[in-house]
Each structure stands twice: as C-alpha cells, then as structure tokens.
C-alpha cells in the first residue's frame, strides 16, 4: 500500500492558517488550515471550483492570499513569487506544462535554474536524477518529440534538481497511461521515503486511496473534512467531497444490428500544425444504438480526428468520412449537421459556445435548423428562449436563465448546457469529446447517463476521452488512438484497462510496427 506514516512530533514542513482569497465575484478560499508533515503525501481533494488550485497557487507564490498565514518549517513566511517559493524549497508541477517545444530537455531545465549551469554538467545531473528516481528521459532530445508522460517527467526532474522539500502536483495523472501512472507513483513514494513532502491535487479517488497518507477535503472554498484515505472507500470520500452519495449509471446491453451511422474508411489527413499529429489510415464504424469510445493519451491525433469528423477541417476526398451513408469528406460542419450529426467539442468557451452571447443565442448557434429557431432568415427570439429554457431545466444547468451570458456559467454547467443543446436535437449520430473533462462528479454521472439514454433511443454515439474509467463505464466498444493511428474497436467485455493501457502505446495486435523511437515516446 503506502510507505510508513511520517513520524509525529516534528515541526510540520508547511502549515497554513486561515488562508483566505477573495476575487471580485467569488471567495475562492475561506479560512483554510492545512498542515503537511515531512515525508507526507497529502491529498487535497475537491470538486472543480472547490478552491484547490487557488490554494496551491498561494503556496507556490503565484497569487497572494487576501488574509492568513503561511508557516514554513516553523517560521512565518511571505511567499511573494514563485522564485521565493523555489528558494524556500517548494517545487510545483503544473497540470499544463510550461516547456519550450523547440528546445532540448537539458535546455529547458537550464532555463528554470538560477544562474547559468554548464549544459554538459547539467546533462549529466539530469541523467543521474532520472536514473535514481526511475524517470527515464534523454536530456538531449527535443521536447516536441516527447510524449506527454515524458514531458511530465521533464517537469518533475526540473523540480527535483532544486532538491525540493515540498513538491506540489496538480492533477498529474490526467494525461498519463495506466502504466505511466504506476511509474509516477513509484517515484513519488521514493521521494516520500527520502523525506520530501508531497501535496497531491486530484479528484481521482482510487488513486488517492492508493497513494496518499492523509487527505484534506475542500468544498466551496472551505475545509470540510480530513481523512486517512487508506481507511476510507472511494464512495465514502466522494460523500465527503460532494456532500451526498455518488449516482450510478444504468447501462443495459447494446442493441445489435443497427445501421452504420458513421463510417471512417481509410481516413488519412496531414495536420497543418507542425507539432500536430497526422491521421493515418483510420477505419471505424459506429452503429445506431451503440456507444463507441476512443481512448488514448492526449496529443495522439484526437483533435485532428474530431475536426475531420465534425467538418471543421475538410479533408481532401469525399469517401473516407460517411455520415448516415452519405460521403461527407468535403462537407462543412453545417452541412454535416444536416445529415444528423451533433458534436460536443472539447473546448466549451469560444468553440462550443460564444462567451459574450446569451444561452438563447448560443442555442441558435447549432440548433437553428433542427429546433426551428430561425424563421424566414430571421431569428425567432421566443423559440430560442424556450429551447434554452428547456435545456436548462432538463439538464439542470445552474444559470441565470436563457438571457445569462455563456461565460457567466461555471465550466461544468456550461458543459451540461452544450451537451443538452446537442442531445435535445435528437441527433442520429453524436460525437462527444471529453464529455466530463473538468466537470464535477455529480454532473459527470448525469452527463454519462444522458449519453447512455441517447444510445438506448437508437442514436449512434462516439466518445473520445482520456478517462479510461469513464470509457469502460459507458462504452459498448473501445478503440485506441496512438500516433494518429486507430486500433480495431473491441467489445468492452472482451478487454481490460490493462490491455487498453498497452494499446495506448501503439502496440495492438496487428499494428504496424512503429519505429523504436516513436513506440518509446508513447510509453
């Protein structure tokens, strides 16, 4: 399970007292107390918007608290900026990496260190650290050629070179394969044994249970509980986190023999982005009445595949994308919608919704035709408001009503609105990217159930997600995308998280052997 608990009676590594942070419209942190002992792996647990990230930014000196005290190894300190935090011995690995893609690993690390360390010596030290902690990465390689897992290792090594005594990790596993998660946990346990404290931010309860010694639960900017994860179950921690029991999805067997609503046959497309992923010879059928999931580590062609299916990116030929039997490769997004396609994109603000426009206007954005919100070339405001109101009610969108601007909603509520808008159009084919990314547990369960209900009514559903658990919960068949190639889709009952994890490195039965370097990078 976990390494022995830290010894009591010593000076705490970090102690926060009454931390409060007020933004113009919200109180992000409200009187938070937190104590981290030396060598302790301490989880900070909470739904989105609970104030976890704000608290970490305060500790790392990115933002300053409105009130409250920070004590570092027994002494009161002011953490004015991240440089000060690093000088104290605090390191942080952000959810979104800050690496220069065109530089090598060693160059990226050098940029973060004080002074001008000679590169040759640094390369040597990186190699030592990476050896010692089991974080294999070649210091001479360019960052753009690294997988997401490797990039995270670079970020961690960069922190470790400064010998931190507290390492903050913000949602570190959201981008990793299950195998890479194992290796990361081994590294973190080793650091803990050597006396480094770790603050581990996550909403994945099973991981916290496995890794962490203690946990502090936040809800609405306040501490609502403490626990020892080893003595809890994911269900009991979820109750602490959301204040009620977690709803469970009802699934039921898939209908068989539905017609193919989406057919990808030999879809290849070169990405415009020099660091994008080219799609290579993708084959996939999605039938009426089933949910097909595509797993994979982000950056392996998901964005490109979604754009090629949605019509935001037109491809060179007509035949590789067929929607409802019609060759659609050259059609734009609006024309494909007329074939019964609805689509929930990954980004909500600015792509799935226009931030400054009202929810009623955002209903018009994609439902104009299917819900009759435009009459004779003119907007029908009354109909748009009614459609938005129905969506708000049926999908429990917490908002100021149809006239509220899209940007005034929290991420999870906007996601519910967008999913609702697409689902209410009764699509024949729904394509959904990261349906519950950044959405709190309660809303996530609701959205999953909505997708399952849609499938039960005979819609074909394609879900692309990085959350394996989610895919296993809702999908009938699962395929894996790696380096722009797609594996065959397997029925969920005939596969396992471990198998899919291996496939995520691009190694599935019958896969073309990849160049050694590529296979390594995907690991």
């Amino acid at each position, binding site marked *: 399970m976990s390494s022995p608990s830290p010894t009591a009676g010593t000076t705490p590594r970090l102690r926060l007292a009454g931390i409060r942070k007020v933004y*113009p419209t919200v109180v992000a942190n409200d009187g938070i107390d937190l104590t981290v002992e030396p060598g302790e792996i301490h989880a900070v647990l909470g739904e989105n918007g609970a104030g976890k990230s704000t608290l970490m930014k305060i500790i790392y000196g990115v933002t300053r608290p409105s009130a409250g005290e920070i004590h570092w190894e027994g002494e009161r300190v002011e953490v004015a900026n991240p440089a000060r935090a690093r000088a104290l011995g605090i390191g942080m690995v952000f959810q979104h990496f800050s690496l220069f893609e065109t530089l090598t690993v060693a160059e990226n690390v050098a940029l973060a260190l004080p002074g001008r360390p000679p590169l040759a010596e640094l390369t040597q030290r990186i190699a030592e650290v990476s050896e010692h902690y089991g974080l294999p990465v070649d210091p001479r390689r360019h960052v753009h050629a690294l997988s997401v897992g490797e990039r995270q290792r670079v970020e961690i090594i960069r922190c470790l070179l400064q010998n931190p005594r507290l390492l903050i990790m913000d949602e570190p596993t959201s981008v990793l394969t299950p195998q890479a998660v194992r290796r990361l946990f081994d590294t973190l346990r080793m650091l803990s044994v050597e006396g480094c404290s770790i603050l581990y931010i996550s909403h994945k309860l099973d991981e916290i249970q496995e890794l962490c010694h203690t946990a502090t639960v936040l809800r609405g900017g306040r501490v609502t509980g403490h626990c020892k994860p080893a003595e809890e179950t994911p269900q009991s921690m979820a109750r602490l986190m959301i204040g009620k029991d977690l709803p469970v999805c009802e699934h039921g067997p898939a209908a068989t023999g539905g017609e193919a609503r989406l057919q990808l046959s030999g879809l290849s497309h070169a990405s415009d982005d020099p660091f994008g992923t080219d799609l290579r010879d993708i084959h996939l059928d999605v039938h009426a009445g089933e949910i097909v999931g595509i797993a994979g580590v982000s950056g392996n062609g998901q964005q490109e595949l979604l754009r090629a299916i949605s019509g935001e990116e037109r491809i060179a030929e007509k035949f590789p994308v067929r929607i409802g039997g019609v060759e659609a490769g050259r059609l734009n997004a609006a024309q494909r919608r007329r074939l019964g396609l609805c689509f929930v994109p990954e980004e909500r603000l*600015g*792509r799935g919704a226009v931030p400054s426009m009202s929810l009623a206007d955002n209903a018009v954005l994609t439902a104009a035709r299917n819900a009759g919100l435009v009459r004779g070339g003119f907007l029908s405001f009354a109909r748009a408001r009614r459609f938005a109101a129905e969506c708000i009610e049926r999908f429990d969108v917490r908002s100021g009503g149809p006239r509220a601007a899209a940007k005034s909603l929290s991420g999870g509520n906007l996601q519910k609105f967008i999913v609702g808008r697409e689902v209410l159009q009764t699509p024949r084919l729904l394509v959904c990217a990261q349906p519950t990314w950044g959405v709190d547990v309660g809303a996530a369960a609701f959205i999953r159930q909505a997708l399952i209900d849609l499938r039960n009514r005979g819609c074909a559903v394609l879900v692309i997600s990085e959350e394996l658990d989610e895919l296993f919960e809702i999908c009938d068949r699962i395929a894996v995308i790696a380096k722009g190639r797609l594996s065959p889709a397997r029925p969920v009952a005939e596969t396992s998280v471990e198998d899919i994890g291996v496939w995520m490195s691009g190694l599935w039965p019958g896969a073309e052997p990849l160049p050694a370097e590529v296979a390594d990078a995907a690991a």
Partner: protein
Amino acid sequence: MLRLEARAEPSRLMSWCSPLLAAVLTLLAGMIIFWLLGKDPLQGLRYFLIHPVKDLYGVSELLLKATPLMLCAIGLAVGFRANVWNIGAEGQFMLGAVGATGVALYFAESDSALILPAMVVAGAAAGAAWAAIPALLKTRFNANEILVSLMLVYVAQLSVSWLVFGPWRDPMGFGFPQTAMFHDAALLPAVLEGTRLHLGFGFALAALAAGYVFINRSYTGFKMRVAGEAAEAARYAGFSARRVIWIGLLTGGAAAGVAGMAEVAGPMGQLTDKISFGYGFAAIIVAFVGRLSAPGIFLASLLMALLFIGGEQVQQYMNLPSSISMVFQGLLLFFLLGSDVFIHYRLRFGRAGA
C-alpha cells in the same frame, strides 16, 4: 494611489457612458486648445456647438453633413461586428460617386424617372466592386484587408482626379477639374423647402433601419456577430468564414457607394476631385463612437457632423486653421479609446489587496 482593477464582466452602462465621457473630454480639451491659441474658450465652444444649429437652416446643414457619415458608418459596422476591418470606405465612397456620375453623364439628354434609381444602383455596385478587391485578396491569398482597402483609397482618389482632369472634364468649365453640372433628372430632390437637405438623408435613415434589423434580427447578421466574437465557434457551427468576409466588405462598399452617389447627386451636383471631405475615414470613428449599433451611429454621426461644421465656423469667425476640425476628430477617437478602458476595468483608490 490610483489603480485599475479588472471588472468581473464588462460594464454595459460604461459601454454607453464611454462615448459621452469621450465627447465631454473632447470639448474640455478643445477649450484648452482655444485658450492656448489665445481665443476665448467659451466663444470657441459657442461657434463650435451652438452657432451651427441656431436655426432650421443650420439643422438642415447638420443633417446634410451627417448623411454620408451615417451611410458609411452603418455599412462599416456590419463588417466591424464580424472583425472584417474595412478601412477603405473613403475610396468606396469615391467609386460610388464615379459610378453615379457615369450614369448621369451618359444619360445627360434623358429626363427619365429611372435615372436616379439607376444612379443609386450604379453607385452601390461601384462601391461594392471596389470593396470586392480586398475581399477577393483576403479569401484567396489571406491578404490583410486593412492594408488593401486602405491603399485602394489612394488609387480611387487618383482615378477620380484622372477622370475630372481628363475624359470627364466639363468642356465649358474653364479648365476646372470637374464634370458638367448634372441635369435636374439626375439630382436628388430636396426634402425640406429652402434648404439643401435632400432625399439622401432618407436613404441614410433607411440604411440605419435596415442595418439594425440585419445585425440584430437576421440569421446572417447573427452569423456575422458570432464570427466577430469567437471565430472558433463560427467554424464549429459551420458558418463560412469566406462568406462573412464577403458580406462584411460588400455591405460596407455598397453603403459607402450610395453615400458617394448622394453626394454628387445632392449638394455637389457634379463630380470634382475634392468630392469627399474624409467622410469615409470619419465614419470609422462614427461607427466606434456609436458602438457599432444603428441608434448609436445615428447620434454619433450628428456629433461628427457638428465637429465638421463647427470647424468651418471657427475658421470663418475666429481665424483658426481649418485643420482644427481634424484635431477635434482625433481627440474624440483618442478619448473614446481611453474611456473604453473603463468598460473592462474600474478605478480604485488605495493599495492593492484585501
């Protein structure tokens, strides 16, 4: 200590107060300029603001001056809403004047009632055609429409000069660079007896109404707004980016072309090489002061027309240089951009924190 603090969301109130604040600041700065030039500031303001509108004739002149501004600005607003930056309304205005003049001169012998409608169509078509050049280059080669439309202004100006110095010069005009005066059938009728205010003002009001309906009520206008607010969302919804560019530029070009037509068929009665007083450029300021909305543009073009006429008045009565009205236009835009900061930020006193 003063500091700016970001607002949680842009202030709607401030977005309408900002133009008023800018107008007040422009007047204050104007008074300081009068004072520095050794003139009585209050006297200056009287000539600038009150004198031009002291009687019905003055008001009619103000509306006459506002007519091309309204037409150009509402056309530009349609494009600006969609982030299509047509800076060349001045050139499109001149081409509209050229198109209308061509019809008037070609049918100089005819008394047909169809001449005026034909001139309107020709003016709109010529303005739109001029704006089609940046649209084509933008959609084909991704050429920046700001540069292309701006540079075409100078091409338009030189073309007008060539026409009035060359093939279209009035043989009876003692060599002046101007065409023959239009005959009655090619002149817009006056709408107010005893003034120069003509039917073109009616065109401007109609254009404002049409612009309002198009921007706020039509599905195409909705698509334009989405394209301007969030290009990725427009792509996601399947709105054609090319169509947005074409509509934005052609609308602006056609409206400016009609304004050019109304100028030659209205107060000018002929084409000269000084056909525009910078209406096309001033309309950019009008569009922004009017918050890219039809009612706002109506008010802003009256204000801008007042600055034009007021400038002429102080030149006449106070011996100030004519460039004073350009100074006022510049001040207005400067203060507007400055005041707009307060839409997104609020002013706070005291130290940061808490």
